[in-house]
């Protein structure tokens, strides 16, 4: 931009830059700093002690279990949906894509509510579950279901446009040369979409581990049993155990920063192999 005619005066440029950075500092940097300062308000020892209590450790374990179930299921769904949508022609595709993205426009609380209406005591399947001594709501299965719902579109929405862009020629070539369908998928399709898949998994995992609203509705908040890390943060906070709450929160903030760093690295080095989907 060397042309003076389409450049703002230096004073305007500086003012706008400072305003934008001040806005970002206020809404991004300060909250992040507040988490760290509060977590270490009473020093390293108090921080480590807060993280090593039994209930905190069990909330970390539950968060990892929930992510370990919901993320692979959404990967399987994302791969299968993108294969069906990108490699074949059929009617109703755009409707199908809209339905896949539907969970993004539903409030997290409503995402939890729908499972309570299905599986809760007063729910449609509630009596049947009681008869068979099965628990979904206020138990781990409900937490997993709610987590799958809110993270549902992440992998699929990265893979569908990417596979559509890459077309079908490479797969058709492999198949005509005698490779089996599965072999073609493993050796041709998967390597082609690996960075896009990784990108989707990254975002899916961050949301799965950090989800609060949907999980809050179905969890029942039973200490040591159905509390994930974000729910544990809330309980500690409401008990005025601020060091504990912010210590657990600092782990989640670290997860967010690692996710952002990995996401940014992917965008820098593999931009050509990702489809720009906005975020």
């Amino acid at each position, binding site marked *: *931009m060397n*042309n003076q005619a*389409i450049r*703002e005066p230096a004073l305007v440029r500086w003012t706008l*830059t400072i305003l*934008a950075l001040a806005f970002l500092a206020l*809404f*991004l*940097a*300060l*909250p*992040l700093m507040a988490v760290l300062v509060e977590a270490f308000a009473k020093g390293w020892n108090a921080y480590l002690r807060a993280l090593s209590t039994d209930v905190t450790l069990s909330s970390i374990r539950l968060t990892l279990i929930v992510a370990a179930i919901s993320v692979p*299921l959404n990967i399987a*769904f994302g791969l*299968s949906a993108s*294969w069906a*949508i990108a490699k*074949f*022609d*059929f*009617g*109703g595709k755009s409707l199908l894509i809209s339905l896949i993205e*539907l969970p993004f*426009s*539903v*409030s*997290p*609380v*409503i995402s939890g509510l*729908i*499972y309570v209406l*299905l599986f*809760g005591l*007063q729910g*449609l399947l509630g009596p049947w579950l009681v008869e068979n001594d099965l628990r979904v709501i206020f138990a781990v299965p409900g937490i997993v279901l709610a987590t799958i*719902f809110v993270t549902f579109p992440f992998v699929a929405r990265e893979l569908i446009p990417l596979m559509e862009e890459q077309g*079908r020629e490479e797969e*058709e070539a492999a198949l005509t040369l005698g490779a089996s369908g599965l072999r073609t998928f493993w050796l041709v399709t998967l390597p082609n979409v690996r960075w896009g898949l990784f990108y989707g998994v990254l*975002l899916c995992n*961050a949301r799965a*581990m*950090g*989800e*609060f609203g949907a999980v*809050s*509705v179905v969890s029942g908040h039973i200490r040591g049993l159905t509390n994930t*890390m974000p729910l544990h*943060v809330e309980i500690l*906070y409401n008990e005025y155990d601020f060091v504990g709450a*912010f210590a657990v929160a600092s782990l989640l*903030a670290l997860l*967010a*920063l690692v*996710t*952002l760093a990995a*996401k*940014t690295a992917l965008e820098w080095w593999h931009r050509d192999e990702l489809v*720009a989907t*906005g*975020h």
Partner: protein
Amino acid sequence: MASATLPLLRRNRVASSVIPGFGPTLGFTLFYLSLIVLLPLAALLLKAAGTTFEQWGRILGDPRILSALWLSFGGAFAAALINAVFGLLVAWVLVRYPFPGRRIVDAMVDLPFALPTAVAGIALTALYAPNGWLGKLLTPLGITVAFTPLGVVVAMVFIGLPFVVRTVEPVLQDIDLELEEAAASLGADRLQTFFRVILPAIAPSLLTGFSLALARAVGEYGSVIFIAGNLPGISEIAPLLIITKLEQYDYVGATAIAAVMLTISFALLLAVNLLQKWRRARMGGRG
């Protein structure tokens, strides 16, 4: 759910290819989509449809519910407007003005997407509480943020921040500088060029970002409830009221609030989509 029973989704026979796996992948996709998303949402609609006229009257006449809905939608609207202005400013500075550390700042814009909402909630509360870093500065000025509707808006600004920046940024990058040079050579000053040339070009993306931020903020729960203080009728948001109703085993009330929220949200998103379509048609595809 066999795909063959749905004529809508039947594979186009003309363009058959050697690629296998259409049946299993589409079958699994539809099965999983129905199981996780469609059937549970249908259960909500079924429950809402079973609500009697009298019950609807009681729910929609309840001032506590009305004020919660008003706060969720009004607060989200205010937050989305703030994000439209500042998001455009941030996108503009990131695209047009090189400064050291720009790439890191650009990456940090996505923080609200990555940071769990409960973490954001307690962090904002720590900042804006009367004895917090920012609360301490604001209290002498007579401004209370935490535990008021203003706090709700602050949390909603945080959560919607990336949407406008991320939708406007790529469009701003693609603007043809020759258009701006032409405007300048025809005598327009920078401000005129901005309002007459640049703003119309980015307006559709700005509107998309605004509506995404709005939709996100309407349903937001985790980042809001800590800073809101949740006083019924004053700073209580609709999603929290759904949870309160559930805890009182008032499934009808919870479902009705959810149904109203979903209906208004979808109507808003549909309206924005139609507006964009109408605009594109009017501009003859140049928008």
